[in-house]
């Protein structure tokens, strides 16, 4: 069917008012609105219907376009975010240019925010009247197409990034995986076992890490950070800064002889990978299964970097390979990709922010991540649970919700702490036979096999005390408390305050956004929710999309989640990226701005205004020019142009003034 461009004859508008079940109809008199619309100029048809977005609802529009020769359509229903696309498609199928459409939001902007039906109905009428005036001015527009570059950038090499990268690479897409640390693996690489199955974390993770390294379709850059992102969906230009590790990845064979040969015979530097519970040398690999298995030299502690007077035994040990290059410099890589997956992860809550639990004051108060390293066979104590004072604990208290569900710090539930606390309780008991107390507010075990794991722990005689711990202290009231850490808590099931002496306290610290999440957000031009996690486009129906096309989310950067959910999300993000790549192109919105060259005076006011660097200056004709592929339709330049020389599709002055007059005209 050929598309009607609306140029033939008089304007004939169809107005459709939606009940949205009771969402709108309970507060807005939908019949009255529809009747009122019928009285407005140029309106040929006005109807109300229970659900305009349903198939029969859309059919009404399609049928009326044919039967009543409609050439403009107004739908008064919900937010354009939700259904503008639906109705534009209905117009298109009905044979009308989809931009002869205007949507009025009488749900979020009328029924949901008002209680008085008379006033809400009047507001709905006003909004419909404005839309009818506006839509008459609409012109036919065409969508553009942008080709999608088939390569994908994955930022962050934890389990989310690893899984997304492998999924894409296995499907034949080329992936650039950029990781800030010296190895991929993320937080999962630090865990001993995983809940609820107690699989060894390394046994299930390290094969995937090696697969990343070996995959011909994956370019892996560790010790590297994205520093600049330009472009738009389909063709992002990304700059990556690869920090020097002073050991050449291509030349190094991973024999680690250099570490052995370091002039530091004993490891002396606090080991970050082991949460500073162990020591490393200035030249080190974070852990034995690191990928890539290439050492890093830390210039902060290496004698050669500090004084220039080292014997450089590491260089000698490397010998003929010449992999160690102490003069290495940072390298800038520029790549082009069509889509991006952000899997930048989380940071754990800083336990010092809850001073009542004594972290940093009492040496035997630990965070959960520290205890993960203590129970790990390749950790600083080879899996023996010994405390900072060298003793094995006889009683351990695990405090839940530290930096979670707390008005003073982070309000959200971190989702994984109940389960990892159970896991640590099991592991500590297995390693030491200690008596274990869990202090919880609510036990949250909503995953597959989680509740069963909780039941198992109950049968292992781990104690559960319901109550938020008031403090961890070393003041002693009874002889049994001497030399112990005392956990003071209101046992809300027993109904009294308890003082429980223990040797070791484990703080189940929550998950929070990275300290630099805002910088990453700005760089990729996406949004964050209030608490600082990256915001998905829709919490239910677009959980891995962002508001920026072509940029997807996976893992804890979007919010706290466990490994199964992270992997599922990473797979979904990879699938979304593939859907774009395999389609080959995306359609762009036509709401871009363009310069009317005959009016442009060449003053350049608009150029620095554009947040997307879409405007350039044409020296030959001395006029500004807008690249429509880069323009996002924000309208800043339109407002800024002193000559009024910039027009924006769908936001033409005529259209806006008609709408304003429509609102202001008394009914």
């Amino acid at each position, binding site marked *: 069917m050929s598309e009607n461009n609306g140029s033939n004859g008089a304007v004939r508008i169809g107005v459709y008012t939606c009940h949205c079940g009771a969402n709108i109809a309970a507060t807005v008199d939908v019949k009255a609105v529809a009747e009122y619309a019928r009285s407005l100029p140029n309106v040929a048809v006005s109807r109300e219907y229970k659900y305009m977005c349903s198939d029969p609802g859309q059919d009404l529009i399609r049928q009326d376009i044919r039967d009543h020769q409609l050439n403009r359509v107004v739908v008064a229903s919900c937010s354009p975010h939700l259904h503008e696309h639906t109705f534009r498609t209905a117009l298109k199928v009905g044979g009308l240019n989809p931009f002869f459409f205007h949507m009025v939001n009488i749900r979020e902007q009328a029924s949901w925010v008002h209680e008085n039906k008379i006033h809400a109905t009047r507001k709905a009428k006003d909004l419909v009247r404005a839309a009818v005036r506006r839509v008459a001015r609409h012109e036919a527009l065409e969508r553009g197409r942008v080709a999608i570059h088939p390569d994908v950038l994955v930022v962050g090499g934890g389990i989310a990034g690893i899984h997304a990268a492998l999924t894409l690479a296995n499907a034949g897409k080329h992936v650039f995986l950029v990781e800030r640390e010296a190895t991929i693996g993320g937080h999962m690489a630090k865990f001993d076992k995983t809940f609820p199955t107690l699989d060894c974390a390394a046994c299930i993770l390290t094969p995937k890490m090696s697969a990343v390294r070996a995959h011909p379709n994956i370019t892996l850059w560790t010790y590297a950070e994205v520093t600049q992102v330009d472009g738009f969906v389909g063709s992002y230009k990304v700059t990556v800064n690869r920090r020097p590790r002073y050991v050449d990845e291509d030349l190094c064979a991973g024999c680690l002889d250099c570490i052995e040969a370091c002039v530091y015979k004993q490891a002396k530097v606090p080991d970050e990978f082991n949460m500073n519970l162990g020591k490393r040398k200035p030249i080190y690999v974070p852990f034995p299964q690191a990928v890539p298995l290439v050492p890093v030299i830390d210039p902060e502690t290496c004698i050669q970097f500090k004084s220039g007077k080292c014997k450089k035994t590491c260089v000698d040990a490397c010998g003929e390979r010449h992999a160690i290059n102490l003069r290495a410099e940072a390298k800038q890589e520029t790549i082009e990709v069509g889509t991006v997956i952000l899997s930048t992860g989380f940071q754990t809550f800083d336990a010092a922010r809850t001073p009542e639990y004594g972290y940093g004051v009492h040496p035997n108060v630990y965070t959960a991540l520290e205890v993960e390293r203590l129970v790990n066979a390749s950790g600083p104590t080879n899996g023996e649970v010994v405390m900072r004072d060298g003793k094995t604990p006889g009683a351990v208290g695990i405090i839940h919700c530290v930096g979670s569900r707390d008005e003073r710090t982070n309000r959200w539930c971190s989702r994984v702490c109940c389960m990892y606390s159970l896991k640590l309780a099991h592991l500590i008991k297995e390693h030491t036979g200690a008596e274990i107390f869990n202090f919880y507010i609510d036990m949250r075990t909503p995953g597959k096999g989680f509740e069963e794991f909780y039941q198992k722990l109950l049968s292992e005689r781990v104690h559960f005390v319901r109550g938020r711990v008031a403090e961890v202290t070393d003041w*002693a009231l009874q002889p049994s408390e001497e030399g112990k850490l005392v956990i003071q808590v209101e046992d809300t099931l027993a109904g009294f305050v308890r003082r429980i002496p223990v040797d070791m306290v484990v703080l189940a610290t929550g998950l929070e956004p990275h300290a630099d999440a805002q910088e990453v957000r700005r760089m990729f031009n996406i949004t964050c929710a209030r608490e600082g996690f990256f915001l998905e486009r829709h919490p239910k129906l677009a959980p891995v999309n962002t508001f920026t096309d072509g940029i997807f989310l996976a893992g804890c950067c979007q919010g706290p989640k466990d490994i199964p959910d992270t992997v599922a999300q990473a797979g979904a993000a990879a699938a979304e990226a593939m859907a774009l790549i395999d389609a080959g192109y995306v359609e762009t919105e036509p709401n871009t701005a363009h310069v009317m060259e005959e009016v442009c005076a060449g003053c350049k006011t608009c150029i620095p205004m554009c947040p997307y660097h879409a405007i350039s200056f044409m020296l030959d004709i001395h006029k500004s020019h807008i690249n429509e592929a880069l323009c996002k339709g924000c309208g800043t330049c339109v407002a800024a142009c002193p000559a009024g020389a910039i027009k924006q599709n769908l936001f033409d002055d005529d259209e806006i003034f008609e709408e304003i007059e429509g609102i202001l005209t008394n009914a």
Partner: protein
Amino acid sequence: MNPYGYFPGCSLRATGVAYEESLLTLFRLLDLPLEELRDWNCCGATSYMSIDEESAFQLSARNLALAHKAECRDLLAPCSACYLVLRKTQDYVERYPAIGKRVKESLAAANLPVLDGVRVRHPLEVLYTDVGVERIRSRVVRKWSGGRVACYYGCQIVRPFEEVDRAHNPTRMDELLGAIGAPTVEYPLKTACCGGALTGTMHPIGVRMNYILLKEAVRKGAQAIVTVCPLCQYNLDAYQSEIRGKTSTPVDMPILYFTQVLGWALGADAESLGLKRAISGRKFLEQWFSKETQEAEAYV
């Protein structure tokens, strides 16, 4: 300089006379003028607040309004209970329109202005912020010859308003005493409750709370506790003989006001600091603050 408004409250004229004496002496030594609020009334604290909240807010608000009327910018409330109830009243009037409306109506009936612009201050915070640790250090004329002390802040001045010091681990008193050379111990109960009015209403429970504080101070090696609140001082001071009779803890330690300790270091005599009014730990007090020590250590 503008004088600080001074709200003594009932305690400083009764069980806490030593606090008032030492406070006035210390402020005089530091050239900080105080001007007592004229016609002040009960602050409305503790029992009043729990029995008749509305009257308590009105009582408190009257004091704030008087201060505002007297163009007093900073109102000094040395008693922790007074400090807290005055701050709480300001906060509730601002945050809860219903309370604010009733309070303003009562004030209007008494021809008093609304209670804007008055800052309620505790002397600990004034000494720390307005005077500063360094200026105190520079004014020391007498070396501390007493024992190790535990700084006890009590529950009211740091919670919920963290304006005097941090809620969970206040350290400003420790820093001020450090400046005069008095050794302090780590005292984990520094913000625990002293028992408050429970020593009167539920005596065994109140005394047990005093006992916990005293026992832990002994355990940490302190020979005295230094307080910022007349009720804390009174509770800890008054029941030590009872505790001695009931437990195996042979406690007999002085309970001092921080203003007494600082005043002594800055050269005041024991009399003007109210040091003779103490009940417990007299033998230490006589040793630490004797005429001989006073002369021997003066002007080091």
